């Protein structure tokens, strides 16, 4: 039944697998990014193909509609400028108070916009790849977010693209805080393979009083995510491990199933 070439093939495949699995993690990371680089021409082709309908729609859009859109955007811009003035004044006041109390000054967030190019093809991981890398100043463990809330963290960085582990992945644990009077602290853990927008908030204190709709934000503990990034809202809660701690389900603010563009926080100021 077995011919010599079958033995040879079996041995060769096993040897290659064992060699790859025993490589050091740094070499594996570089090798992965190098092999992933083979797909670069296809990234470009897909993004061009996605832009074609948008460009086609732009060319046939009537001028009156464009002018109306410009007017709406100008109004929105003016409103945001006024809001920015108020925010700047509040930030200045905050800085003065911090100086008076001897606390560390807060730096404004430095954000960089990235496009999502790929999603993890495996069903048991939740990662995405973005089109920013080392040459854009990215390093590992930078927080990634959208205007709605937290998305995840940068897990590995290549020259032109990086892998981001989403909040719902088992390898991304986030220390979070419920915005209730007790400011209960917990750890965000994945919900389930089919849950796209729900995660669990575990290890809350046994007597935590949680109500649906309460906001959950990052606590700033853990050394990766700065405090105050919105994570989601409490859906429901239950006692776990015979009342030892409380566990809650949290509906994520960011829609992780439809991510097109994300912001990478380049200067996370940690507690």
């Amino acid at each position, binding site marked *: 039944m077995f011919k010599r*070439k079958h033995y040879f*093939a079996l041995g060769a495949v096993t040897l290659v697998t064992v060699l*790859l699995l025993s490589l050091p993690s740094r070499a594996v990371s570089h090798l992965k990014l190098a092999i*992933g680089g083979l797909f670069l021409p296809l990234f470009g082709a897909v993004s061009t193909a996605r832009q074609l309908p948008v460009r086609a729609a732009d060319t046939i859009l009537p001028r009156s509609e464009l002018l109306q859109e410009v007017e709406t955007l100008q109004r929105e811009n003016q409103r945001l400028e006024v809001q920015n003035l108020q925010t700047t004044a509040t930030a200045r006041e905050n800085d003065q108070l911090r100086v008076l109390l001897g606390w560390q000054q807060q730096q404004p967030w430095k954000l960089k916009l990235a496009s999502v190019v790929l999603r*993890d093809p495996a069903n*048991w991981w939740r990662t995405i790849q973005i089109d920013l890398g080392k040459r854009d100043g990215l390093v590992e463990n930078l927080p990634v977010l959208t205007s709605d809330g937290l998305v995840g963290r940068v897990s590995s960085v290549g020259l032109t693209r990086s892998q981001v582990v989403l909040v719902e992945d088992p390898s991304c644990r986030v220390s979070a805080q419920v915005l209730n009077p007790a400011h209960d602290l917990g750890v965000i853990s994945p919900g*389930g393979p089919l849950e796209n927008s729900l995660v669990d908030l575990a290890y809350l204190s046994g007597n935590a009083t949680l109500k649906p709709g309460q906001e959950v934000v990052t606590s700033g503990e853990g050394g990766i995510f700065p405090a105050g990034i919105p994570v989601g809202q409490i859906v429901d809660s239950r006692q776990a491990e015979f009342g030892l701690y409380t566990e809650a389900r949290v509906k994520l603010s960011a829609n992780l199933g439809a991510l097109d563009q994300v912001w990478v926080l380049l200067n996370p100021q940690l507690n």
Partner: protein
Amino acid sequence: MNVLQTILILAAAFLAVFAEAAFQLPRQCFGAQVDLLPALMIYAALNTSIVTVSLLAALGGLWFDALSANPLGISILPLFAVGFPICLRRDLILRDLPFAQVILGAAASALVPALTVLLLLTGGQQPLLGWGSFWQWLVMAAGGAVATPVIFALFDWCQHALGYQPQTETSFRPDREIRRDRKLN
């Protein structure tokens, strides 16, 4: 056709891995992404040599793991574990029957992710698993079952279009010609 067929299969595997990462329609509709590599492996195991099967397992697995959070190389063995026994016993399989293709595609598409997850758990990884994983597993098996006959049809068409065609044989054979002419005395 052998080298061309190998190149075509590897190119298809490359595109399949990219499509799985770039297009999210199955995930949005059914909650799981369908893996096309096991279906390709069935075709390769039934129609090509062990060299092509090994190359598909090694390169397909590497490409898949490079775009995934899997440890690099973990998908190679499950793919090979499906392709190798089929390649050995392919004379016993009615490879041209669509029913056989569907059954083999479903079995391979169910076995490859199960073996991969088993290897991940053995290696101390913590993949995202739960009751929903059974649904994802069924979707993957069903997707593979549907994809396998399509892949067979596609590659048969390619082979027909690009490969050498066997010379058509006529029923006429000069050595068996019956001479009916009357002998002239």
